[in-house]
């Protein structure tokens, strides 16, 4: 199968995976009934108020759409961060964007419920990225390992801040913070879909439109400048947009790690590194992967396992594999 055939398959994969996911769930709804409910919705037919209708349309469907949006946001940010930092080992989780956003959300939930949590999540994920970047940069051009290390430090720092919040908050709110931090779509509804859709669209749109510039940016700062890129301006736009998308994603689903690392790599292995193709395909593959992981999370046991656990179980070995591969092929220095 050539590259040409792969492209439409990946682009359509979220629809395919999402379609299957509609038929699976803890509460058994027979397949013909699921199909009938969906058809009636699409064709504006009235089939009366049956409980299954609400399960499909108000529980499963928003959850699938939300996981697709979040998967798209995390993968698009992963592609962006790997490109601008010319570092195949980074993603929003590793660089601390997710932890920063989580802290923003936690203080909102705990102490200042008047502030919309998306705004706090965005602000703190932006702050976290700049701290990570500044630490890594203090030794000149940002190189591979210092960036990962400073990301780890910043992640740890914001995770500690979240712990303080957990310690101080009243126990009723504690449960929801803890559960949400593990990364889960169990609280999805149409409201969270619409809220996330705004932030994720606003964040992903510039990432999508500017994707070709990542090719030049990833050649290194000086070379990009010599080619005519205003590196500071572009980097600021990219980081801000990524933080916006990640902030919106974290605010509805908590910390879901590794997706932004794995998906861009798998897509890059399939279609090559050109960001013109890599970005849209990673967005689609990220959406499909997240729907898949979440369907697994809600179906493989009788509980609703937090999906963050599933992505971490697959992601950590993948990271080790990349480090070994990197050492062998000696990418960048």
């Amino acid at each position, binding site marked *: 199968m050539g590259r040409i055939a792969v492209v439409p398959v990946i682009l359509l994969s979220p629809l395919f995976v999402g379609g299957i996911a509609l038929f699976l769930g803890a509460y058994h709804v027979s397949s013909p009934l699921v199909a009938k409910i969906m058809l009636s919705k699409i064709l504006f037919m009235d089939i009366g108020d049956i409980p299954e209708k609400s399960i499909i349309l108000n529980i499963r469907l928003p959850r699938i759409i939300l996981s697709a949006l979040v998967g798209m946001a995390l993968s698009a940010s992963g592609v962006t961060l790997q490109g601008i930092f010319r570092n195949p080992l980074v993603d929003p989780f590793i660089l601390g964007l997710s932890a920063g956003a989580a802290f923003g959300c936690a203080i909102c939930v705990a102490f200042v419920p008047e502030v919309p949590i998306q705004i706090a999540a965005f602000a703190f994920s932006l702050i976290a990225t700049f701290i990570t970047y500044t630490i890594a940069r203090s030794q000149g051009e940002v190189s591979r390992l210092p960036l990962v290390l400073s990301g780890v430090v910043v992640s740890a720092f914001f995770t500690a801040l979240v712990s303080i919040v957990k310690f101080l908050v009243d126990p009723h709110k504690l449960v929801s913070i803890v559960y949400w931090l593990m990364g889960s779509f169990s609280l999805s509804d149409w409201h969270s879909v619409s809220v996330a859709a705004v932030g994720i669209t606003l964040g992903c749109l510039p990432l999508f439109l500017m994707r*070709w510039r990542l090719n030049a940016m990833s050649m290194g700062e000086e070379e990009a400048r010599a080619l*005519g*890129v205003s590196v500071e301006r572009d980097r600021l736009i990219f980081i801000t947009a990524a933080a916006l998308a990640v902030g919106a994603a974290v605010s509805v689903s908590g910390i879901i790690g590794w997706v932004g690392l794995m998906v861009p790599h798998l897509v890059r292995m399939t279609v090559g590194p050109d960001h013109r193709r890599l970005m849209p395909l990673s967005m689609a593959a990220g959406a499909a992967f997240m729907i898949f992981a979440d369907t697994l999370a809600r179906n493989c046991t009788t509980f609703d396992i937090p999906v963050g656990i599933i992505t971490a179980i697959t992601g950590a070995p993948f990271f080790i594999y990349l480090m070994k591969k990197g050492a062998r092929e000696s990418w960048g220095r």
Partner: protein
Amino acid sequence: MIEVKGLSFSHKGEGNPVLKGVDFKASPGEVTTILGPNGSGKTTLFKCILGIWRSEEGDVLLNGRSIRTLKRAEIAKGVAVVPQDHEPPFPYSVFDVILMGRIAHVGLFASPSQRDKEVAHKAMNTIGIEDMAERPYTRISGGERQLVLIARCLAQEASVMLLDEPTAHLDFKNQIMVLTKVRSIAKERGLTLMMTLHDPNLALLYSDRVLLLNDGTLIAKGEPKEVITKENLMRVYGLEVEFISQNGMEMICPKV
């Protein structure tokens, strides 16, 4: 055309300037070579010409306009550079690398147009590497990479072309091949070509004008034969050399 006027540069917080009052002109259709020992300021001079590093004193005029007043993309439309050999983190295809040369011509939220792709293809044809288009840039030889970067320069459609040690990492044959090619392109298109070299023999063979740089100061500038002399080489490199003439060709041989 490049005019450098009284250019001085020092790194922030360091007293000793890297460039001191450098003054010269590089004209269209000519090959201007900068010769000088390691650390003499050749690469710094290029970075100042590209506006990557801003000089505190003096000015660089690109086709008559001070680069201080130009935006990044405007500078890139006027001057293109072949950087020293390096490895990108991702295995872009040769064509993708050449297409990057168009970024100064493409809007912030746009992707390269059909015309941009045509320009990139034309640049590949000029250099004669069109059959390499789909090969990964990370898997080709040093000489081939040099050619790809030169094609990228052409795709940038700038009137000034800088080559930073184009012969480093190249074998004997590839050095000659690359230099012959860029020289003929520069002559054909009336480009202002500037390059840094280490080998005075190559400078003698390929340049129209030579600048001799030592410790940030221009020791001599002018015709190759005026600049590359026994005395000047002694002064700059501290090496005794002998000039050997045969069949109208001149060779510089160090006395060892």
